[in-house]
């Protein structure tokens, strides 16, 4: 269902549970969430033990096999600073009955400010529309997360999408329910701006 390897100009996106060993994965997930984390529907608590990471990798594998969701590891290509290191993870979650998918991403701090989020988004848009044949891709962030909002707005604009609005009390967090800013790109908008995804290569 999901392509295991997607390439952009500067990045390799690879199926996470196959490309990342447990130790590296645990190190990645035991950090505190970085500011540039775009919101998934459930925010990610840092892993306390390798067992939690082990279980997460199993869930990723199940999600991949079931078509429930795809988690990719992001690796910068040779020539990039930190080439071959795990720069972050990216999630594509289909909502099949809505013919839509939502995106989530977490970029590690040393790799901020390079536009990796937007490049990753272009790759996932290609997967969403050209491979999964869906109609809509959406992304969201916490209203206070300026960095994420900037990154999302950039690629949403590039692909002709829109800011749909602010959804109140959308994401339960520790002791409050956070609002969420929601953005989307439709298939028509993507097709009209295809040159923005020209560098994306999907390996089946």
């Amino acid at each position: 269902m999901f392509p295991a390897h997607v390439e952009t100009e500067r990045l390799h996106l690879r199926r996470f549970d196959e490309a990342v060993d447990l130790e590296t994965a645990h190190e990645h997930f035991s950090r505190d969430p970085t500011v540039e984390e775009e919101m998934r529907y459930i925010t990610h608590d840092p892993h306390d033990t390798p067992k939690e990471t082990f279980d997460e990798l199993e869930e990723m594998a199940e999600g991949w096999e079931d078509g429930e969701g795809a988690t990719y590891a992001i690796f910068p290509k040779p020539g990039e600073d930190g080439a071959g290191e795990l720069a972050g993870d990216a999630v594509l979650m289909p909502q099949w009955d809505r013919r839509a998918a939502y995106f989530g991403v977490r970029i590690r701090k040393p790799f901020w400010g390079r536009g990796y989020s937007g490049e990753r988004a272009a790759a996932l848009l290609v997967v969403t529309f050209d491979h999964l044949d869906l109609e809509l891709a959406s992304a969201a962030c916490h209203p206070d997360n300026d960095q994420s909002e900037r990154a999302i707005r950039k690629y949403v604009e590039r692909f002709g999408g829109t800011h749909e609005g602010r959804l109140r009390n959308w994401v339960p967090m520790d002791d409050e329910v956070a609002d969420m800013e929601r953005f989307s790109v439709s298939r028509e908008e993507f097709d009209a701006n295809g040159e923005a995804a020209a560098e994306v290569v999907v390996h089946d």
Partner: protein
Amino acid sequence: MTEQRDQGQEGATTEDPHETDVTFDDWTGLFPERVETDRLVLRRLTPETVDVHEMYDVCAHDDGIEQVTEHVTWDPHPHPKETHEFLTAVEEGWADGESAQYAILPADEDTFAGACGLNLEWDRRAATMGMWLRKRFWGCGFSGERAAALFALAFDHLDLEVVTVEHTVDNDQSERAIRKYVEHFGGREDGLLRNGAVMGGEPVDVRQYSVSREEYRAAIDE
């Protein structure tokens, strides 16, 4: 002899359905089984309060039912078993504390005008509000009156923070009614959610609105 003129005097007073009185009775578990407003009684939707066959007749054959079901997530009931299954699901939702659905009974009618309710999303401290009305009861202001009742339930008794409501983008009837009561209670349009709901197996765009507890309280106090 002086002629008094009251400059501010209106002619006939029109009652605003949004400002109805609301009372709650017969609490079972989390929800009241009976809600009364100026012109309506909302009664917990069960086979006791609405006869299954009467409901089936309405949900299958009511004059204008095609127009009603054009914009809700269900189709006209093909047979009474559908109605029965629906009512069973409604009972389960009530028992689980997940959903409070009511039959809308206008005080001067001997039949039900439609149904309404709250679907609870406790972890979000929120609820979504929904309603459908039989075509012959459109344009009576029942929507606003029912909204006032369910807001009172949500904010004053269930201690929720936000109530949302949505309609499909081409549902002008609903849009008009919703905008009126959302505005009255100080709420806002949240946005157009593309592929935000599924109807008849197809994704549809919906417009979503929300009212917060603070907005509701401020509107009531005015």
